[in-house]
């Protein structure tokens, strides 16, 4: 039994790989999507506890993905991953219902801590 189901949406292979190599050993079940539309399609098919989404992506950006998830699947938590953190986008993300945000480049420990924090509160 996994600790939780997580969907990672990021256009960069290395980021998806980093997430899986950090979180899978911790006991989370991870699925990957290369972009926003693909991630939303997977969300239609199965339920996720948490979505880690990149902010800047082609086709659809993280804020849009966040908006759709919060509209359709309010129970799913969202953490924004960004390499381009600004106060404005952070405030916007939190206002739209993001649980937290994490800056790139992150270490495995900081990612694990952020995700653990989400599940502690979900399960809390």
């Amino acid at each position: 039994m996994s600790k939780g189901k997580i969907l990672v949406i990021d256009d960069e292979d290395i980021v998806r790989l980093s997430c899986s190599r950090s979180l899978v050993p911790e006991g989370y079940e991870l699925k990957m999507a290369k972009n926003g539309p693909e991630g939303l399609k997977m969300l239609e098919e199965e339920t996720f506890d948490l979505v880690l989404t990149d902010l800047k992506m082609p086709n659809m950006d993280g804020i849009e993905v966040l908006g759709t998830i919060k509209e359709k699947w309010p129970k799913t938590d969202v953490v924004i991953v960004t390499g381009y953190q600004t106060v404005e986008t952070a405030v916007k993300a939190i206002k739209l219902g993001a649980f937290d945000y994490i800056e790139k480049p992150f270490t495995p420990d900081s990612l694990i801590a952020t995700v653990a924090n989400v599940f502690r509160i979900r399960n809390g």
Partner: protein
Amino acid sequence: MLVNKSFYSLTGKLILTIGTLMIAGSMLFWLFLFKHQEKELLATSVKYGYSFVDYIRNSTRYGMLTVQGTLIQQTVEAVGIAEGILNVRIFNSRGEVAYSSDKKHVGTLLDKNSPLCLRCHTASGPTKDTPSWKITKGDKYRILNIVQPIYNEPSCYNASCHAHPRGQRVLGLVEADLSLELLDHGIKQQGIAITVYVLAFSIVISGVLCIIIWNFVSTPLSILAHGMRKVAAGDLDFKVNINRRDEIGELANTFNAMSDDLRKAKNERIEWSNTLEKKVEEKTEAIHRAQQQLIHSEKLASLGRMAAGVAHEINSPLTGIVTFGHLLRKKFPEGTEDREDIEVIIDQANRCSTIIKGLLGFARATTADKAQTNINDVLNSTLNIVKNKADFFNIQLSANLDPSLSMVKADAPQLQQVFLNMIVNAADACEGKGSITIATSNLNDSGQDYVQIEFKDTGYGIKDEDLEKIFEPFFTTKPVGKGTGLGLAVSHGIILEHGGTITISTIIGEGTSFFIRLPALKETA
């Protein structure tokens, strides 16, 4: 110079005209006077002539009444000797010379058509029996000829001789030729004297007029002409010195006023052209500066956009390096060489991460969340952060903050980042020892109120060649790994975004001052 053209000059013409008029006028006057005098003198001579002839008549009366021809002849001869008497003759009624001062003439019969007879008698008509006189020209002088009739009277026709009948009115006539030599001589002398007087008078009057005209007209006119030539040649400072109240004086004053106006106009023109040149220079300089600033800002802005792009692209691979570095590290026990190698990879990845954060800060400097801010408060909180840092233990940090400092509209966290950069740079310049002084003040430059913050260090100073590049991203003089070269670039971007400026004043060997100026709000702190 005026003498050379004397004949054509105003003076020459005036003197010529006045002189001619003077001479002509005096001549006419003296001629009239002279003629009048001559007439008077002649009348006197005639009067004396008649008196003389009367005298002859009376002298010979006794002889005639007593018919003593010899006595009469002797008397006439005696009278005829006197000076100025040329000739004395007594005619009888037949026109025959009865007696004469010159005996040769006695007995001569005058022709009835002789000029003497025609003075009283006409060939056919009536006879005039009045005394008459006539002047004829002699060889050397004029001759006055006087004729006086001898009238019949009772003592004549009653005399015992019965020589003359009672009915005869005129018995004969006495004629005398008198010399006018003295009169002519006197008149001639007078004429000469008058001519000399007139000439002398004319010369004197002309001379006086000449002097007057010279002094009152010619000299001032020549001074004026000289002044005009000077002014025409460009000497506008030249003044005509004629202090008089007449028209010439007025002309001189008008001329001076004119040259004054000309000089003023000329000076104005020169000044205007000078200032114009200066203004054009200033404007050109200002445009050049603005252009440079624009180029600089544009450069920094495009660098910012590029930095953001680069940061975003590099963060993902960096995430991989950091993540896998950490994962690998766990596989090697502490103290092994492999573990140390992994540590190096992780450290360098972290360094990259720091650089990218700096770059993002630089890129982000273009947006700010501004509010009314007290710069002194921001500085105090910044100083609190650095005070406890080890780097500042041996540096004397002092703040001289103006309590009446104006407020500014600013993004406080961004300003704190700028101030932190400034203080850290100052500390780096001091190389761990020396002093950093921070001062704030209100300032007015060209009517605009500013708040000025000065960061002064006692470091080495900044070289000229470094000054040009100091605000460019990635420019650093610090050792590799110590600085990213983004601090000042980010600070510059933030201050520009706040409508402020950063300027540097540096002296090699003594230290550097950074001056930050931000536009002040109207209200005071």
